[in-house]
């Protein structure tokens, strides 16, 4: 997985015009790996119909 994330970071950084030094590249790979791990907690969640799209504000029915 680490090698895949490294390859992804190199490609995505290049496409976005970001130049990464060696130390920065390693930190970005570590951070992105962490984000991918965290995302496993919710990307597979099945959502109830009608809950899409997300509101930026609390829905009116929740307002007193």
């Amino acid at each position: 997985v680490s090698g895949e994330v490294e390859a992804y970071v190199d490609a995505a950084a290049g496409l976005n015009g970001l130049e990464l030094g060696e130390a920065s590249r390693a930190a970005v790979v570590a951070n992105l790996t962490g984000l991918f791990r965290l995302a496993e907690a919710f990307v597979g969640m099945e959502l109830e119909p009608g809950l899409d799209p997300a509101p930026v504000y609390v829905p009116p029915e929740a307002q007193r």
Partner: protein
Amino acid sequence: MSVAAIAAEVRSGAKRAVQVTHEALGRIDARNGGLNAFTAVFAEQALADAAVVDATVRAGGDPGPLAGAPFAVKNLFDVAGVVTLAGSIIEADKPAAATDAAAVASLKTAGAILVGALNMDEYAYGFTTENSHYGPTRNPHDLSRIAGGSSGGSAAAVAAGLVPLSLGSDTNGSIRVPAALCGVYGLKPTFARLSRRGVFPFVHSLDHVGGFARSVSDLSLLYDALQGPDREDPASAGRPVEPVSSGLNGAAALRVGRLAGWFETHLSTEAAAGVDTVARALEATPDVRLQNAEAARAAAFCLTGAEGGALHLANLKARPGDFDPATRDRLIAGALQPAHIPAKAQRVRRQVLAEALALFERFDILVAPATPFAATPIGQASTTMGGETVSVRANLGLYTQPISFLGLPVLTVPVVRSGVLPVGVQLIAAPWREDLLFQAAARLEAMGAVGPGSIKEAALADQ
């Protein structure tokens, strides 16, 4: 002296606002060196503003409910004539703000006196206020330890008694974490309640404005002065003013539940003791579950990286060397996430909010820890949590992130015991029910269960 007492003396003419301001400036001069809470002090302007308040009193006018009360703001709030740093050196190159942020203007209109700007994590992306450009803010309870962040200067300045009130912002816990670690009260109101106009953004979907105080009464006066719709702020929900300061002693019984599950995982002994104290005092029903709290926390984390990274992308390309390296690399990683991750995070937000709203059919207040552990030593990157070595910075928001992700109002109350570092407890209510938070906090304060404790003044003055 409380804000109400200051305002009463100034309004009656018993004490001049100029004198109150001189005293605050003297405290800052004497004690800020050891704390590094302030990044700027506006002595001349503060004294001029105080003189206007005094002139209003002399002329028989109304100087406002906060007359003469000194306050300071996290340095991401616009202050007319001052460059808005947002904890960075990149913004230091920008022109000074032309006008005050809406929140700053509201407090000035209420008669409060702005005395300075406060330290924070760079671009509000952190929980420690170990700012590599402006230095770390130190915890008034132990100067070798962090104040928490990102509004660390705001919490430390109030905890040390330099000012009675301060403003901060909270995206993932940036008011609640430093309030907990510094042992003061912190309020993050309902999302979109208070105007964000003139506040440097971080994550548009999650940014809140709020504040700090050393008593529930002071915090209520601050909150009341900040309320009101703002047609110039597209992020304002337009709620009318719903005052809380006159209703702190509400007689109604409160139904209180103690959040378990995710909110007990990794909890340190001292933080658990704080929750025990509050839950016992409020006779909380145990073992209440917000089923998808972990998913909410994870989604908040990913969404923060994506929106924060996108916000700063131009500077990440053009001036990468001018960021704190740790901030920069987290922002870059956030910006590089595949789009489906932040998109799904937004959708999860509503699902978990629906779960939380169902809990509020049974409870008025939910109780949860503010942080998993108390303040750690400055410079210590990792700590032990549940037997694992983990990042301090990444885990201080473990229990705050799921709540701000849902936009729920939270009042963090301080539990300070002699010889033990402070911890904080989150009181959480349904959207727009800040009134219940203040009633619960006032009840706890009156019982002596919570409160800011005392700071060893000599330790601060000697620095």
